[in-house]
């Protein structure tokens, strides 16, 4: 839109009223992303995983720069180097924590057998802390129209909220989940800002529950009913279980679509509102593709393991059973199986990245309408960037997102 300018656009005194609503547009360059993800996976294999920082950065740059809000794409300004440094800092911080965790575990066990188990709770909360801080890193590296997003609040505070809400959700066998989602999202969003434009979240737990009550009602019925049925009459029970597993992706897609729509429509930045038309049909195809790939990859992996075993047996195995057993202990056999396994894991991750990161991102982005973006004109830059420690922690704890 930059080359179709009309003279009055240049006048700062008379800013033209932009249309009240506009779509977010995602430019689908799937082959580019696919190459990026596949190359990244290869390099991850060669670099024993260290390439993940560069891959994550490349993927984010791609997604950010291909998503246009009123013609302007955000810029991801984070660097892989920051992620690497954040990760190394996280290691330094986690080392004493692991040590303390270990010693505490011993002391707790000494006082009472198996008393160390609740310490896993601490771990869960710590992960929530890391998730909060990682979101903060990503937001402060997101720049749109020369102004960055910022995020305040405290990771510890957030982790405590997650702890209490999760407890409540457990007590109510999941019925409190929608309210938990709403409360956590409210906390995140009221600490989020775009420049001087304050964010907030107006979605409510009741709103989410109303749109997805069927899910919350049927879930406990299925979770309790199916095992009971299997015990009572195994034949019928297993048939029902098979049916449930077949139907699950459809149900999950329907629920996720509801959740996405609810989430998007709850977001506010000042007077800017959003709305999503995401339907379950947008998601269901993606899920089945991932399931299909997973099946294909496991078949390939079994064939590979079978092949390696066969070759090793043919080369090293003798006639006796003992010689055959000895052959399987060859480092080649283990290395062959290990490499096959790693390759299939990386292939699966590439599939996940293409479908559940790139395609999902694209579909969600394309489903969104932005209302009243005019309220976001002349927003002033403010706020600071934060370091990548949170991402490093999240990464070390194996919970890195995109």
């Amino acid at each position, binding site marked *: 839109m930059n*080359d179709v300018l009309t003279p009055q656009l240049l006048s*700062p005194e008379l800013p033209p009223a932009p249309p009240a609503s506009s779509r977010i547009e995602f430019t689908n360059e799937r082959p580019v992303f696919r190459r990026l993800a596949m190359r990244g996976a290869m390099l991850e294999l060669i670099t024993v995983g260290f390439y993940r920082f560069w891959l994550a950065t490349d993927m984010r740059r791609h997604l950010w720069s291909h998503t246009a809000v009123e013609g302007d794409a955000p810029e991801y300004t984070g660097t892989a180097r920051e992620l690497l440094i954040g990760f190394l800092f996280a290691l330094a911080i986690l080392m004493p924590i692991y040590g303390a965790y270990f010693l505490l575990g011993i002391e707790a066990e000494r006082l009472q057998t198996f008393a160390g188990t609740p310490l896993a709770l601490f771990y869960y909360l710590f992960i929530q802390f890391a998730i909060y801080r990682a979101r903060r890193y990503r937001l402060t590296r997101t720049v749109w129209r020369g102004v960055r997003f910022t995020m305040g609040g405290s990771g510890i505070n957030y982790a405590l909220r997650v702890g209490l809400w999760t407890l409540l959700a457990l007590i109510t066998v999941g019925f409190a989940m929608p309210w938990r989602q709403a409360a956590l999202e409210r906390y995140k969003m009221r600490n989020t800002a775009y420049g001087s434009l304050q964010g907030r979240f107006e979605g409510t737990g009741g709103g989410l529950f109303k749109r997805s009550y069927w899910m919350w009602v049927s879930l406990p019925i299925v979770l309790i009913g199916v095992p009971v049925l299997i015990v009572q009459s195994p034949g019928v029970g297993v048939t029902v279980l098979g049916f449930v597993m077949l139907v699950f992706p459809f149900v999950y897609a329907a629920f996720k679509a509801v959740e996405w729509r609810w989430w998007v429509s709850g977001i506010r930045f000042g007077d800017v509102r959003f709305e999503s038309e995401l339907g379950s049909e947008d998601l269901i195809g993606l899920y089945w593709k991932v399931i299909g790939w997973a099946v294909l990859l496991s078949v390939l992996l079994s064939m590979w393991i079978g092949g390696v075993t066969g070759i090793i047996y043919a080369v090293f195995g003798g006639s006796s059973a003992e010689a055959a057993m000895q052959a*399987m202990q060859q480092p080649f056999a283990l290395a062959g199986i290990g490499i096959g396994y790693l390759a299939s894991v990386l292939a699966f991750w590439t599939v996940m990245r293409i479908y559940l990161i790139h395609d999902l991102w694209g579909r969600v982005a394309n489903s969104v309408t932005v209302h009243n973006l005019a309220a976001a004109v002349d927003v002033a830059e403010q706020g600071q960037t934060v370091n990548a420690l949170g991402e490093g922690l999240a990464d070390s704890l194996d919970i890195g997102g995109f």
Partner: protein
Amino acid sequence: MDARPDATTETTVPPPAVGETLAPAAVYFDGKTNRKRQVTLRFAGGIEIIEDDRILDIWPFGEVRRADGPPNMLRLACVTALPLARLEIADQRTKAAVLAHCAAIDTVERTRSNTLRIVFWSVAAFCSIVGLAMFGIPYAADRLAPIVPVSWEKRMGDAADGQIRTMLGGKLCTGAEGQAAFTALVDKIREAGELDLPTDAHVLSSEIPNALALPGGRVYMLDGLLQKANSPDEIAAIIAHELGHVKHRDNVKRVIQTGGTSFLFGLLFGDVSGAGAVIFVSRQLLDASYSRDAEHDADTYAVDVMHRLGRSPLPMGELLFRITGKEKSPFSIFASHPLTENRLEDMKKAHRPNTGPALLTDAQWRALKNICKG
């Protein structure tokens, strides 16, 4: 072309001539607000950013950098301008002009040599971590274990005791005569083995044929093993083996080693994209190999003690073989102990005719066998 921020007259300029004002060809964000300004650019001393004949800023050519942007759009930042100030250029002619003027535009972009550097350092890090896991950690464990105070080890033992006892089931056997015989046997072995750390040995009424040493010198002989034994020598060598673990402080070493490998493998490679299984297997292999070394050393100690007592260590090998049979399998490299057949082989080599007195009298041996029946 080198970067010359102050070059006033550029001579090698393609399409747009020096000083030529281009048609509105760029969008400018000043980095203070998100106002989107349509600007014209003039290439003179630098990129002059002009709005309504007013120069908003001048970006020296040498300080202009490419920022990440959408496809078909050239997004620029400037080192000396505000960090978030951006110029966005979609027009091909203008893009070409910028690329021609700004030599240093891609200095921060990733290049092929950069990727090679990442690969090199990753491989180097991998080698150093593997080296650390294979040599550094066992060395550190050997050096650190003797420094750990016995009282700490005892605390760990107390913590482990509850779990172990719950898992094994069974109660402490307290038959008075049997306990006296057991203590006498343990004391003989302690003396012969020159063990000066405190020990606390008991028989547990569990069916499992095994014996174990916990941190802090607590040793359990399980009744299942006792019932399978045919002579005091068999039991004595097993106790000597467990006391060998106590003397070598293998439990402390094990804690240090497991902690070390978990840390190295779990954290550093924690996110090799879900390669958790490979990490788990590698850790098991490594831990098993540490453990086999420790077991082998404890066997050597047991053989030594039996020699000093003037008894043959062979019965222990026979007892083990009676319990496990031949162990060789495809999973032997995951085994925590040396294969029983190999242990039996070692004990056969160490066999010497008995020269010392029997370790227990027949009456004592009977009492020990019946320790859990009281």
